[in-house]
């Protein structure tokens, strides 16, 4: 079946090549049938790659270790659900996922625009097939997911223990969907410039996909942060890792684009800016993919072993050069139709918001790529750590939150000072009230967090006022009860009120970030059973050690041979709060040089954190058991010299018992962080708001409105 998979790749490459040619010939010659054939090539590409994905999934689920990717990333002891997700844990499989998702989203985009934007869509089709062909070519010539080895090994290496986590199953598909969706506005943007049609119809088509890209990318980023916090042993959710940054940058420019697109839609302004943003977003998405596959990064996210840097650099260079050429050569048609009516207007707030978002993106771009470029040029390792990023991003984030509260209370086109005073009264009062409350509560030692909380109160006041006034106005006209009036208000103004909900969600998220990072209590120390320590207002006592052996008893399906942990009792003011059981898994290394016993537990240990999460705070803990004590090392050494491979687990069982009976001092990492939960809640709220804003009005509503408008028009014409 591997041959079928590879045949799919070759067929996909041929389809891409044909589709590019047909689309370009069709649009240049005016022969619609060739443009249509080019569009159907995208559908065919999606179909062919679906077959390829199915072949690979069947291989993983069926434990076909003849496939190299299956042997390298899966095993018989890997649970089925994780085996299904292991497809995209390798370079080859993730390339296939990328190409497949791209073909699906491209097919959807072209299907939805099949009766509009003909010339633009034809160019966009060629560009999307170009992307598809690029990724398929990488698989055909560099990283074949259907490569086999004969004879097939009897067992696979297994999935990386760090990836055995539920959110890691969905994080890559969501993130890749975001990345691939970013290429669609890019393609339509290039297509619009090539066809010389950057107009209202283009805006209408592109907005939906830009929004979908923003939504998926945002959810993917949040899932990655959740995995980092819940699985990795450092207790953080964002480390300014290069790959994290690479996903955030297109999200930031995409956010800027969604805002400034509204200005172009209403006022015919910022066309150059918008086109540049959409092209930059697509380019940044490809650059993010480049980072993990180029071999220039040493990161949990990086696919080591293969280097696809050169092809990606070529692609990115073509994208940047093409974008610059088209924007410059089409600058006449991109002139603004109007000017800003007033600085005191929603347009100017959106402009300011754009400047901040792009500024944020630039800071992150610099901090991410400068060390890599510096190291490449000088050979000396350079690093830019979290303190550098925090120094520049935190003030910008504060301004962003403030602007998200100012924008809703200012009108489009122009606002008056009198109106401004009236509209800002409640939000400012909320901000001041928050300041007073925090001062009374003594929460003043972190000024930046204080400012964030006050800005958040300002935003809640501003948006709350919008919902209140809108509902009140609808009630005044319709006499509906409050719930119905609120529902009707949101239904008829999905974009606006969906956007407000996004603003609330992002603000809540920032509150969680500010609180959890500024008011965290941390402690790292060694404890023996019976000993306790104080972290913040919590008392944590090490009750006793725990040990489990073999995958058979591995309830969390971590795949570890041996898992050593601890039972911890958490109390506050003498009252029991939680019982935590952090552990560390020791995995088989496959290194015969470590001996029969040593090789069973000599792999990279992986921490499994334990936490008690609530709405107000998280108590988080990780453990680093010491198995290098003289007594434990002696057990391993004796086992290595006396036991054959088939009986080596006996020594591991002895080791586990010895650890329980005579536990050495154990290193613990404790964190008490307030309001962490609100980061995830804020993300959910933002995603929900995004869905509301993105959702089209029901077709029955459209038909009724169309019929009413037709009747009104005919009456008007009759009177005329």
């Amino acid at each position, binding site marked *: *079946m591997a*041959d*079928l998979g590879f045949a799919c790749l070759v*067929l996909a490459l041929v389809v891409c090549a*044909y*589709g590019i040619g*047909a689309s370009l010939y069709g649009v240049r010659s005016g*022969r*619609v*049938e*060739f443009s*249509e*054939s080019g569009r*159907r*090539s995208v559908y*065919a590409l999606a179909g*062919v790659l679906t077959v390829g994905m199915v072949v690979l999934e069947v291989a993983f689920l069926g434990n076909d270790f003849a496939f190299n990717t299956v042997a390298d990333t899966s095993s018989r002891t890997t649970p089925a659900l994780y085996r299904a997700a292991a497809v995209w844990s390798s370079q080859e499989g993730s390339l296939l996922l990328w190409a497949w998702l791209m073909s699906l989203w491209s097919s959807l985009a072209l299907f939805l625009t099949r*009766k*509009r*934007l*003909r010339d633009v869509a034809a160019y966009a089709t060629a560009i999307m097939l170009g992307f598809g062909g690029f990724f398929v070519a990488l698989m055909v010539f560099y990283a074949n997911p259907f490569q086999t080895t004969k004879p097939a090994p009897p067992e696979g290496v297994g999935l990386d223990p760090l990836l055995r986590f539920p959110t890691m199953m969905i994080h890559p598909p969501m993130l890749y969907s975001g990345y691939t969706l970013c290429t669609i506005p890019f393609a339509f943007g290039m297509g619009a410039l090539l066809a010389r*049609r950057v*107009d*209202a*119809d283009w*805006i*209408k088509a592109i907005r939906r996909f830009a929004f979908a890209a923003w939504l998926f990318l945002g959810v993917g980023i949040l899932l990655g942060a959740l995995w980092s916090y819940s699985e990795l042993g450092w207790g953080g959710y964002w480390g300014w890792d290069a790959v994290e940054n690479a996903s955030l940058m297109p999200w930031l420019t995409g956010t800027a684009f969604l805002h400034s697109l509204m200005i172009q839609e*209403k006022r015919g302004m910022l066309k150059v800016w918008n086109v540049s943003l959409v092209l930059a977003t697509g380019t940044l998405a490809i650059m993010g993919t480049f980072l993990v596959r180029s071999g220039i990064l040493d990161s949990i996210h990086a696919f080591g072993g293969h280097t696809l840097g050169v092809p990606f650099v070529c692609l990115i260079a073509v994208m940047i050069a093409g974008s610059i050429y088209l924007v410059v050569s089409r600058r006449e048609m991109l002139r603004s139709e109007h000017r800003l009516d007033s600085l005191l207007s929603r347009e100017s707030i959106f402009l300011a918001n754009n400047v901040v978002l792009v500024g944020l993106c630039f800071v992150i771009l610099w901090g991410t790529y400068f060390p890599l470029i510096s190291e490449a040029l000088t050979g000396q390792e350079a690093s830019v750590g979290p303190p550098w990023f925090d120094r520049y991003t935190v003030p910008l984030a504060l301004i962003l939150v403030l602007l998200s509260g100012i924008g809703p209370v*200012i*009108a*489009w086109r122009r606002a*008056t000072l*009198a*109106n401004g005073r*009236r*509209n800002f009264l409640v939000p400012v009062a909320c901000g001041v009230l928050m300041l007073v409350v925090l001062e009374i509560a003594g929460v003043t030692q972190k000024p930046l967090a204080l400012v964030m909380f006050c800005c958040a109160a300002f935003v809640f006041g501003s948006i709350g006022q919008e919902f209140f*006034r*809108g509902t009140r*106005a*609808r009630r005044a*006209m*319709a006499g509906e009860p409050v719930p119905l009036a609120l529902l*009707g*208000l949101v239904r*008829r*103004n999905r974009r*606006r009120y969906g956007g407000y909900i996004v603003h609330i969600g992002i603000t809540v998220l920032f509150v969680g970030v500010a609180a959890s990072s500024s008011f965290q209590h941390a402690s790292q120390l060694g404890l023996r059973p019976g000993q306790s320590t104080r972290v913040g207002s919590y008392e944590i006592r090490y009750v006793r050690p725990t040990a489990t052996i073999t995958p058979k008893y591995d309830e969390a399906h971590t795949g570890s041979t041996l898992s050593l942990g601890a039972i911890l009792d958490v109390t506050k003011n003498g009252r029991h709060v939680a019982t935590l059981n952090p552990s560390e898994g020791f995995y088989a290394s496959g290194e015969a040089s470590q001996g029969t016993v040593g090789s069973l537990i000599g792999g990279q240990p992986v921490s499994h954190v334990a936490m008690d999460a609530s709405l107000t705070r998280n108590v988080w803990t990780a453990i680093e058991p010491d198995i290098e004590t003289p007594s434990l090392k002696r057990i391993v050494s004796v086992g290595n010299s006396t036991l054959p491979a088939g009986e080596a687990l006996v020594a591991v069982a002895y080791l586990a018992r010895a650890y329980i009976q005579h536990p050495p001092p154990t290193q613990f990492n404790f964190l008490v962080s307030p309001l962490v939960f609100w980061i995830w809640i804020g993300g959910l709220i933002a995603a929900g708001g995004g869905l509301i804003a993105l959702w*089209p*009005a029901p077709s029955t*509503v*459209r038909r*009724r*409105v*169309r019929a*009413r*408008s*037709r*009747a*009104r*028009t005919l009456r008007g014409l009759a009177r005329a």
Partner: protein
Amino acid sequence: MAFLVALLTLVLLAVVVLVVGAPLRRAGRPDTSGRGASSTRALDDAPSRATSAGHGEDPGQMEDLEAAREAKYREIRDTELDYRTGKLSRQDYEAIDSDLRAEALALLNQLESSDRPSGATPSSGAEGDSLGMGRKNDADV
């Protein structure tokens, strides 16, 4: 197994050729309906192409005008919502609303001058005020 793989590959290839080549086959087929080549293309194309092909209009321009009209209706609604939620004074609202309605009328005139049988038909809930009220002769949404 090799035979099965080869067979599946051939089937896949055949399906791809059928799907991708369908428009080319349709275009190359002799027209037996008596409607002419342009209406054959219209099977795949938007109704506007079949309509406008006989009137010499650029269907792309038509789509753009319709999109611009929807955007203008949305802008009128947004302005009304700004007024009703206290962000605009009555004077400013009336001035802006007047400008927007004049711009909308210009778009409607452009659309009607291209002789579309559907007339000035907005889509996706654009016409009508943002709160769903205020039009005496209209049913509420």
